[in-house]
């Protein structure tokens, strides 16, 4: 029996061992199938989960973002843009000039040329290199200084073009400025030469101011609280800047101006101004004096009252008011100088009544982002009377009443906001002698702090 049992057990064992692989095959198939199915489902679920997760994270990110925003403490500026360093910028300038007539013979009929009033040196010349520093002084003042480096007769000279402090938000529209600044007469006069639209000064600036009028003194301006821009102001100075002259105690020159301006729709903007400047020059010297054979130059001097009135009008156009691509600028200025007094040199004395007037109109068209072209027309006149004409001749003043005229055409390439290459040609009839054709090729580049976009 024991044997039978053992045999049975063996048989079962054999059967089992024989049969097991058969069962096992089916199961593993099933298993594999199941695994495959599971994998597929898992894949699908994974994908779904991923989508869900994505949606959730989007939602979550959004909510955390919003939560972050809501939780952020208020009124704490993240950054402080104030650094104590002043804004420093420099303008580099150079030009090549070519004239059909020599620049030494240049004359402006009816006007005496002073200071930098003549033509730029022929050939290659380094123009003015200007350095400007500006910053808030404290909570009340803003300070700015511009010094210009230029060559004069082979020497490098440093000239203080502007150096002033100005109140910051004195309130109620008042602003006070003190120091040296370009006088608030006309439109171009307040701008530095490098931001003018042409390579040289308008003839009237040349004739009346020796290029530009500046004031050492005080300026007060008041801006009306109206939607239309209306500014009234005035300045007082020491009166020693040409055409002023002499050391004067107290107020040497004074100026009053009124400006108004605004927009017409989105595309157009304009500004108009009137101004009046007054000074009483003492011993203003005319450089045109002649040598009277004795060796020493016997200069003619002027003493009396000088009044200059100005009216200026500027209009700008840009499609949609967007100046970057295209724009047009039209500018016209007219000056009238009235002088009353006497002329004298060491030998003679004469009463003098002089009127010098004129102006210019210019139009500049920027037709693409990088190119501009412009036209300018200058015209001057004069009516000079003296009790002794000889003194006028000695002063170098042409009293024939000839009307100087000039036509200018320029083309500019602006590689960026910071650089400019300009070509300009003038047909200049400044004096009755001979017409002059003047050609300029000029570069202007600014480095450092971003130049301000004044109107």
């Amino acid at each position: 029996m024991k044997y039978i049992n053992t045999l049975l057990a063996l048989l079962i064992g054999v059967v089992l061992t024989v049969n097991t692989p058969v069962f096992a095959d089916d199961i593993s198939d099933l298993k594999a199938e199941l695994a495959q199915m599971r994998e597929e489902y898992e894949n699908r679920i994974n994908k779904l989960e991923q989508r869900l997760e994505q949606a959730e994270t989007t939602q979550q990110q959004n909510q955390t973002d919003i939560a972050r925003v809501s939780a952020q403490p208020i009124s704490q500026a993240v950054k402080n843009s104030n650094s104590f360093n002043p804004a420093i910028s420099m303008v580099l300038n150079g030009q090549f000039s070519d004239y059909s007539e020599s620049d030494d013979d240049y004359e402006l009929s009816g006007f005496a040329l002073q200071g930098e009033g003549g033509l730029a040196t022929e050939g290659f010349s380094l123009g003015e290199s200007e350095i400007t520093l500006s910053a808030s002084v404290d909570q009340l003042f803003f300070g700015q200084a511009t010094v210009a480096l230029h060559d004069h007769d082979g020497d490098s000279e440093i000239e203080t073009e502007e150096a002033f402090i100005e109140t910051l938000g004195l309130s109620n529209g008042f602003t006070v400025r003190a120091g040296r600044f370009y006088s608030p007469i006309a439109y171009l006069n307040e701008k530095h030469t490098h931001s003018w639209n042409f390579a040289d000064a308008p003839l009237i600036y040349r004739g009346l101011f020796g290029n530009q009028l500046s004031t050492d003194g005080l300026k007060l301006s008041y801006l009306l609280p109206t939607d239309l821009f209306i500014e009234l102001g005035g300045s007082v100075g020491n009166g020693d800047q040409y055409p002023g002259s002499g050391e004067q105690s107290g107020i040497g020159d004074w100026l009053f101006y009124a400006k108004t301006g605004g927009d017409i729709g989105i595309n157009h903007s304009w500004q108009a101004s009137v101004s009046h400047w007054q000074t009483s020059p003492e011993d203003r010297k005319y450089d045109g004096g002649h040598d009277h054979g004795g060796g020493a130059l016997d200069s003619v001097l002027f003493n009396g009252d000088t009044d200059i009135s100005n009216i200026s009008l500027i209009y700008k156009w840009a499609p949609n008011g967007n100046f970057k691509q295209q724009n047009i600028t039209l500018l016209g200025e007219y000056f009238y100088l009235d002088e009353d007094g006497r002329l004298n040199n060491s030998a003679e004395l004469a009463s003098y009544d002089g009127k010098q007037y004129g102006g210019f109109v210019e139009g500049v068209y920027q037709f693409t982002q990088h190119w501009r072209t412009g036209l300018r027309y200058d015209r001057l006149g004069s009516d000079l009377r003296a009790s002794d004409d000889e003194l006028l001749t000695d002063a170098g003043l042409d009293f024939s009443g000839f009307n100087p005229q000039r036509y200018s055409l320029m083309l500019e390439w602006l590689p960026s906001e910071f650089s400019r290459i300009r070509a300009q040609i003038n047909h200049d009839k400044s004096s009755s002698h001979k017409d002059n054709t003047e050609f300029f090729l000029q570069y202007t580049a600014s480095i450092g702090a971003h130049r301000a976009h004044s109107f």
Partner: protein
Amino acid sequence: MNKIIISFLLVIVSSPTIADLNIFACEPEWAALSQELGGDKLTVFSATTGLQDPHYIQARPSLIAKARRADLLVCTGAELESSWLPLLQRKAGNAAIQNGASGYFMATDYVALLDIPSSLDRSQGDVHAAGNPHIQTSPLNILQVAKVLSQRMQNIDTDNADFYQQRWQDFSQRWQTAIDNWQQQAEPLIGIPIVVQHNSWGYLFDWLRLKKIAVLEAKLGVTPTIEDLNKVLKQLKITPAKMVVHAAYQSPRATDWLVSKTGIRKVTLPFTVGGNDQSHDLFSLYDDTIQRLLDANK
């Protein structure tokens, strides 16, 4: 004559007595946001429109006159207005809007900026030292700015503080719902490769998780040269993009060139309120922006 003088004086005397808070917004998005937060308690003026490049504004007489009467400047900051806003501040004779005063509000002071350059050199274009100032392309930034701006209004105009607080709560709720909706709508755009003309879309791309694969302006603010464009063209042959994006106020010349060479889809986005007719307020600005991107992705 006397009558004229008297009426003139009356104009002068009467104009500053208007009780409203005078807002001078440098860009239309801040004008729109101020309007949302202050409603009829404000008189809002926008110095620029959606079709103007805010870098290239001049300190026009009209802007000086407006700055003179402003109680609160709401501007972008981060040097975006650095060539004209300081001039306005100087010429306006208005203590309220000077740097650091209560009426001086620069939105970028309250947002973490992208694209802060590691080196500053103008040969790289018109680089913004402070970082990308165009924060209005993400509504999350708007929310952040709105909160601080509302607080500022409450501080300046204490009489109406409750009103401003209410407006802010109402706005933030509507705005958060809107953000949820925009993000759901924009989901199909996640990871879409896009070319941009000017590198000013960082905040939008981060928010919607779009992929910027090329910039047409190799140097910031400098019109791309034909070499620059050809480089992009070459790059696109290897990794194609779905669309090219430029702002409505920019000249589309570079974008059009790329479209003509590759047939890529061109998307003109409003960039700010008023950038196109559809974007008349902040909500419609994003509605329209996302719609245009979705349309181009079809």
